[in-house]
């Protein structure tokens, strides 16, 4: 079989494997797969309920040059959309038919009835005023059956965001939508945002669309566009470089094939090992596979320019590089997070497949278990070889000590325009949206205990609402009081005085006899021994989403969340909650930073373990001194890349750490090739091969570093800096070694 035949066959096999992978591939976007197991409740909320809740499912619309009538018409149109669960401002229609049945049936247990004639007079006078304003049949029937409006009051406190006037900003009208799909369900969110934009496009005035789902959809488009653009530019630049270097189509395909074969094999392997492959695994997996591009480059260049003796040694060196890279990537499998496990498995399978493909198409057999020791470099020259790496490591370490090394604030990586985020924050304040950073959690051993403690927490926050430190709260207990409270309210019905009610009605100029349905319901409730239950609330489709968000089983107990609206004094809330031991104010931003810090520690530990295992492997195959020298160079390149990232990017994010693993692999490869003992006649081939490998990596990652998207820029800059450092260290080490 000729070389051309081998390339053609490898190409066909790659295409077949790619087709197989594509058929089986199910991509997921659940970011929680990339997070470590949560340590506490706040981290659980972040990881397990990611994409749901106060912030992630809200879309805001600002209609310019509009009025409330038009806003109402648009809101009505949007309410019929199957992916929208709620549009605010909404009318709490004064009609019992519009209320969830479960709330209407248990209305007398949802609040306290007035206690005496005076209190009844006050409440009924308000109803009389309501009737002066709107007295159609629905309103009359509702007030006749629920004169204290316990049902409407409970639902409005539970459901309300801002008071409705806040939505009317003069010539700008605001609308707020709650989406059915979670924030990370991008396909559904894209459909929804497209439909909303189509609706708004039909009106004459301008409109601004804000909110996490909108940013996610727009970002998806811009990330896809920019990633495609930059990948294409990098790919074309790389292709041109390789074409210019080899001037042979077969060689160009031969260089690209191992990478392609590695990628598709890894994808296929993941489809068998996991039900779904994460989108991030694919994106970063191909980044990590970038090192495999070097294998055919080394082999082809040595085949072209090297001597036969030199060529025989190429695989020995390459084998060490492949093994080191495999060890580094394999550590990710032990990370504890599914996403990282997938990433490790992808990179590991991909590297092995790429190496085998490169070997096969270049007529080489690969014996990864070859334990032949390489001859040691003479001691005198070794002294000179240490200084470049020691200097680079020293300078980089000094920089790392001088600047804050890690950036655990994920928000710093968002590519969303800062002005847009500010407008978003202002709108959330204006519309009294539940605070996305702070919320109260109440944790107890049983449903009933959690509800009772929530009631106490909500009660302690009441005075803060009247003093303006808090606009409002949303708690499950507003529509599901504890069994205790329901019992007390039922007992209070026994004390209901019809005389007091009639006196109050007379004072309000209302006809007591017209409230027969209320009196009848009250008597029925007195005789009733059932209670409003969590299950009954969940059975109500209109309430299920909100109920699940607010009250759920967690670990060995139940958690009730109390969302805070318009929080201006965090300390006051903390002080108020001290009287309720089961309640705590959660800071989700802090929790996310802690989670990222834990994750980062885990990655750093894995990286150190990988280095230790690589050192052990090198120690077995090479001398101790040689192993240390190789490792020192790889670590120095990594430290330099880290120092550059800290200075340029303001700190190392999680993405930089993954990029550093690649830098370590590349650094080892370069230094292994330059540092190996070889015939002097093989120098030109080695120098050429390593230079081309470095230039090709620098081209790809250098172009990525120009991206406007922080994650791409961050990975690109880190790897590009690492490639430069690794190449220069290998080259300086080489001069020291050869004395040239």
């Amino acid at each position: 079989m000729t070389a051309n035949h081998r390339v053609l066959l490898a190409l066909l096999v790659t295409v077949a494997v790619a087709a197989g992978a594509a058929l089986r591939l199910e991509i997921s976007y659940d970011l929680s797969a990339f997070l470590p197991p949560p340590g506490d409740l706040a981290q659980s909320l972040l990881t397990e309920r990611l994409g749901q809740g106060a912030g992630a499912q809200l879309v805001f619309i600002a209609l310019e040059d509009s009025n409330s009538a038009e806003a109402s018409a648009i809101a009505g149109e949007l309410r019929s959309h199957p992916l929208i669960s709620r549009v605010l401002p909404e009318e709490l229609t004064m009609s019992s038919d519009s209320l969830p049945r479960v709330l209407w049936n248990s209305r007398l247990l949802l609040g306290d009835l007035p206690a005496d004639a005076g209190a009844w007079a006050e409440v009924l006078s308000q109803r009389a005023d309501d009737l002066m304003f709107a007295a159609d049949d629905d309103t009359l029937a509702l007030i006749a059956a629920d004169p204290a409006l316990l049902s409407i009051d409970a639902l409005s406190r539970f459901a309300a965001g801002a008071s409705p006037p806040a939505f009317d900003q003069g010539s700008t009208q605001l609308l707020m939508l709650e989406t059915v799909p979670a924030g990370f369900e991008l396909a559904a969110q894209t459909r929804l945002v497209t439909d909303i934009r189509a609706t708004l496009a039909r009106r004459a005035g301008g409109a601004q669309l804000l909110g996490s789902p909108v940013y996610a959809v727009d970002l998806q488009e811009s990330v896809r566009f920019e990633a495609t653009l930059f990948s294409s530019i990098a790919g074309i630049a790389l292709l041109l470089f390789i074409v210019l270097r080899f001037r042979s189509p077969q060689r160009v395909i031969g260089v690209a094939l191992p990478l392609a074969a590695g990628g598709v094999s890894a994808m296929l392997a993941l489809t068998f090992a996991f039900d779904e492959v994460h989108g991030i695994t694919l994106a970063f997996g191909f980044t990590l596979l970038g090192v495999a591009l070097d294998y055919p480059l080394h082999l082809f260049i040595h085949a072209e320019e090297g001597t036969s003796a030199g060529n025989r040694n190429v695989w020995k060196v390459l084998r060490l590089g492949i093994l080191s890279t495999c060890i580094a990537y394999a550590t990710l499998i032990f990370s504890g997070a599914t996403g990282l496990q997938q990433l490790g498995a992808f990179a590991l399978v991909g590297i092995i497949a790429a190496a085998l493909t490169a070997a096969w198409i270049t007529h080489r057999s690969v014996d990864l278990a070859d334990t032949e020791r390489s001859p040691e470099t003479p001691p005198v020259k070794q002294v000179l070889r240490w200084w470049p790496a020691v200097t680079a490591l020293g300078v980089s370490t000094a920089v790392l000590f001088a600047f804050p090394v890690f950036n655990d604030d994920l928000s710093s990586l968002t590519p969303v325009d800062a002005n847009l985020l500010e407008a978003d924050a202002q709108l959330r304040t204006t519309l009294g949206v539940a605070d996305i950073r702070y919320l109260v959690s109440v944790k107890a051993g049983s449903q009933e205990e959690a509800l009772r403690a929530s009631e106490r927490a909500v009660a302690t926050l009441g005075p803060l609402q009247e003093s303006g430190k808090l606009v409002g709260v949303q708690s499950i207990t507003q529509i599901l009081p504890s069994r205790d409270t329901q019992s007390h309210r039922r007992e209070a019905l026994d004390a209901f005085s019809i005389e007091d009610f009639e006196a109050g009605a007379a004072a309000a100029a209302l006809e007591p006899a017209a409230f027969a349905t209320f009196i009848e319901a009250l008597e029925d409730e007195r005789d009733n021994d059932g209670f409003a239950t969590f299950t009954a609330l969940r059975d109500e489709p209109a309430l299920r989403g909100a109920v699940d968000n607010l009250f759920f089983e967690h670990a060995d107990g139940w958690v009730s969340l109390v969302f805070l609206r318009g929080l201006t004094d965090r300390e006051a809330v903390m002080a108020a909650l001290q009287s309720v031991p089961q309640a705590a104010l959660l800071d989700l931003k802090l929790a996310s930073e802690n989670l990222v810090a834990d994750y980062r520690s885990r990655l750093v530990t894995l990286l150190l373990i990988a280095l230790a295992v690589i050192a052990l492997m090198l120690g077995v195959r090479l001398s101790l001194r040689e192993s240390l020298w190789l490792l020192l160079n790889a670590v120095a390149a990594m430290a330099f890349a880290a120092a550059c990232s800290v200075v340029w990017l303001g700190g190392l994010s999680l993405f930089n750490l993954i990029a550093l693993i690649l830098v370590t692999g590349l650094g080892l490869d370069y230094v292994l090739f330059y540092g190996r003992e070889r015939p002097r006649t093989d120098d030109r081939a080695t120098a050429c091969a390593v230079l081309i490998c470095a230039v090709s990596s620098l081209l790809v990652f250098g172009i990525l570093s120009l991206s406007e998207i922080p994650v791409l820029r961050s990975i690109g800059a880190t790897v590009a800096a690492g490639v430069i450092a690794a190449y220069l260290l290998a080259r300086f080490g080489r001069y020291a070694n050869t004395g040239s």
Partner: protein
Amino acid sequence: MVARAAVSATLLLLAVTECFAGEPATEALTRDATLALIGALEFPADVEVAFEQSQRNPLFSRVKKQQGIMFKTAEQGLVMRITDPRAEERTLNAGAVSLTRRERNRHGPGTRDVTRRTQLDPARPSHLVLLTLEAVLNGDASSLTTHFSVSGERRQNGWEMQLEPIADTVREQLSRIWFRGAGHQLQQFRSERDDGEGGFSHFVELTMHPPADNVTRADAP
């Protein structure tokens, strides 16, 4: 108290005058003439007028009355500030009504103003009444024809417009709205059900814009 007495006295005088005026001679206006008249009248901004509103419905033991002042501003729209028996403010603007009243704090002593806003739905009879009042006071004749069949007549001492709802579902609870005036003055606004219940508003010296001559010469009675 003085203002309340003055309003009551004026309203009484109007009622007495009407009672003793005898059966007025009437002349039907064409639909176009009626709409032209409505379209030409507009409650001017920044003028305060007193009003009294009364209503009867099955939950009231007697006719309930409220008194207050009414004015219109460019920013707020039509403001109806009720002063008696309990303070309350209603603002009608662009098809929405805001209701502000002082309520007792739930969690402690004291009171605070609470505002509720409702987008008016013309399918609800009570909302349609408010939308109609807003349209009449803004001279917006065209929006009335969407929901009502309109007729008008000239009387010896004024004019009267009648609006009958087109939608059957609305007609079940609102048989008609009529409003009466003289020259440029809108004096009464009434909504009625078939069973005789409904709401009634009396306005004191509510002089519409433009000046009388311009309107009466063309179409008005």
